[in-house]
């Protein structure tokens, strides 16, 4: 078969496997691990729209997760609105906030932008911790919000088993990956790529870099907020430090950086590499050696940045390419550079 056929077959197989897995795995703990893995892959892919495609380093993205969670939860708790609707509201709110904060900051240089996002995220978190009620809305300050048990109910976005959650986040992940792929092939993708590396050149060519960066930001924030609602409904509890803290923001960024930011599969690869590590070191080494998994995390980060600064995906992709060519008998020129679909970092030359 041809290279293209092999690629499609494997893709189909992977899809089948992912969707069929809950039928085989019954342990809620392992399902939970997978759910969290997809959750992180999803959030990081959404982050990638700004951090990878637009070429800046947002280190405070967890604030949008929080906005999503708080919006949908407050609407549910106080007004009985279904979390699905609340989710959209949260997304729109996050989008608006993102544009507001993006307009002045996206034109800044890397480190300044990063510091801004951190300051903004922490500022919002501290403010929420200090506020019990904002007008008619109960924020409950540092104590966070608890969602009461409502049993199995799609409308209430609550399920007694892990299965439905698994499928929801998997579908969200597939959708966001597809969306990213479309954008990368579109005009916007190329504008963003150009703007990330050589903004002056791009502007000289008539590309309104700022506008496209803002669009990416708006989209990214919207998608991130949806994940916030998902998380709230999965755990049925959250509080400012856990959901809007720097830990989450940094973990998202690291997953993308280690996986390969600016690449579509980068966040997914990163999540696959790092999340199981996180969970298993906590489970098996948790009480003996607290903090070990973060030491490992940090070391991996340093090593990857030293030897593979573009992330783990390029070498893995090359490996796959060679294997696939071997299997299908294609030659090197049998595949265009479309098998290394990178956008953002290898921009306009």
């Amino acid at each position, binding site marked *: 078969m041809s290279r293209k056929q092999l*690629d*499609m077959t*494997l*893709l189909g*197989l*992977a*899809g089948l*496997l*992912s969707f069929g*897995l809950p039928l*085989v*795995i019954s*342990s*809620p*703990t*392992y399902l*939970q*691990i*997978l759910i969290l893995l997809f959750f992180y892959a999803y959030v990081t892919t959404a982050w990638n729209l700004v951090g990878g495609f637009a070429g800046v380093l947002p280190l405070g993205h967890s604030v949008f997760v929080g906005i999503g969670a708080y919006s949908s939860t407050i609407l549910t708790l106080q007004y009985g609105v279904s979390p699905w609707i609340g989710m959209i509201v949260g997304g729109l709110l996050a989008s608006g906030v993102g544009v507001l904060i993006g307009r002045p900051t996206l034109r800044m240089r890397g480190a300044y932008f990063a510091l801004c996002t951190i300051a903004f995220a922490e500022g919002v978190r501290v403010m929420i*911790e*200090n506020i019990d009620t904002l007008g008619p809305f109960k924020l409950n*300050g*540092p*104590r*966070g919000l*608890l969602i*009461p*048990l409502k049993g199995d109910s799609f409308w209430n976005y609550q399920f*007694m088993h892990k299965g439905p959650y698994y499928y929801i986040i998997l579908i969200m992940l597939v959708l966001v*990956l597809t969306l990213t*792929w479309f954008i990368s092939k579109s005009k916007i993708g190329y504008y963003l790529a150009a703007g990330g590396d050589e903004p002056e050149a791009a502007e000289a060519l008539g590309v309104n870099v700022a506008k496209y960066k803002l669009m990416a930001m708006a989209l990214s924030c919207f998608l991130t907020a949806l994940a916030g609602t998902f998380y709230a409904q999965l*755990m*049925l*509890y*959250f*509080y400012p430090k*856990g959901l809007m803290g720097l830990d989450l923001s940094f973990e998202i960024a690291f997953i993308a950086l280690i996986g390969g930011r600016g*690449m*579509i*599969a980068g966040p*997914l*690869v990163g999540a*696959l590499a790092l999340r*199981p590590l996180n969970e298993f070191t*906590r*489970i098996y080494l*948790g*009480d003996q050696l*607290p*903090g070990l998994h973060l030491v490992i995390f940090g070391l991996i980060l340093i090593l990857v940045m030293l030897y593979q600064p573009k992330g783990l*995906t390029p070498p*893995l*992709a090359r490996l*796959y390419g060679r294997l696939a060519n071997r299997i299908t008998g294609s030659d090197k020129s049998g595949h265009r550079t*479309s*098998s*290394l*679909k*990178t956008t953002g970092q290898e921009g306009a030359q």
Partner: protein
Amino acid sequence: MNKSIGGKLVGLALTALVALSFAAPAAAQKTIKIGNVEPLSGPSASVGVQGKQAREMAIEEINAAGGIKSLGGAKLELVYADSKSDPTVGVTETERLINTEKVNIMTGCWNSAVTYPATQVAERYGVPFVVPVAVRDTITERGFKNVFRIAAKDSWWVRDQFRFLKDMQEETGQKMKTIAFVYENGDWGTGFAEKWRALAKQDGYEVVLDEPYPSTATDLTPVVNKIKSVNPDILMLVSNAADAIQLTNTLAELRVKPKVVLSSGGGHADPKFLENVGKNALNMFDEVEWNTDVNKPGVKEINAKFKQKYGYDLAGESVDAYAAMYAIADAFERAASTDPAKVRDALAATKLTTGPAMIVSYDGIEFDESGQNKNAGIVIVQVADVGGKLDRVSVWPKSARRAGYKPVFPAN
């Protein structure tokens, strides 16, 4: 196409995970597994570890005495998970203990912020959850069937703090008028403050300061400065370990001397506290579940045993954890089954008035319909110089007061 690579990797990884899940060993069942979520690292690690040690001591004793006789001498086994004082971790670990480790019963988590959602998880799965110490009222006020708490809830703590103040003013004839609230701005502190405000109004005090502060503040001088500027008669505190030390030392440094300083356990009850503040804590009052001089049989011996094993005295959390283990054993004994519903019912019917669990400061463990131990009480202690060493002396309720001790009220 990159997606195919990603997809392939997803497939590979998932297959690996599938293999792993099948490799999980099946658990044998002639032991009863008790799952415990405790803060074994993080800011409350000290207390979490004490809770762990107390449980271990109790389980050792129970197993040595023959285990659960109605289940053929089944032994009790403890499984731990570290919550790191993080509610999200607490929830995930509770789920793991219930679903993977298949524990028969849960206990935990000391931090109210962790206990609150973790107990909901247990309720979701129908597994009984015994809470030794986590004071937030709402833990037992949600209509849950599976949650039982040994210690008093925070509205009782607050009520007793104000009763103490009233009693002492009556006893000594000294009237106090102004009161200041200084508390850590987490779950615990803000919960207490809400109730303080109501009771202060009721008892006719003038609240001159209502100051939450971040527990992780680098410098508490601004807060102490504020206290100094309002000069309250009574200063009430809720603090964790590090800030309790900082506050006390800074109060001494800036020579702030309210007439009465009353703290609420937690950081102030931590063994490291006295070590690090020394004489600065003299005459401070503290509210705790238990004190080493509680006048009940067995207290001296059991405390001595604990001290010998682990190097320090029993304290609130450790005593309640210890008692919780005995209450759990008692429930299993009466249920004569590991079926969660039967165990739950046995717990609800508990009337434990004998045995080592009774080193608690009150006379019996009995749960009301909301799962709250009806008899749970607290003790107010004062830091005093006893024979050259700093010691915490029980002063209230009057029946619990250490013989021969006259409380210093006001302190300044």
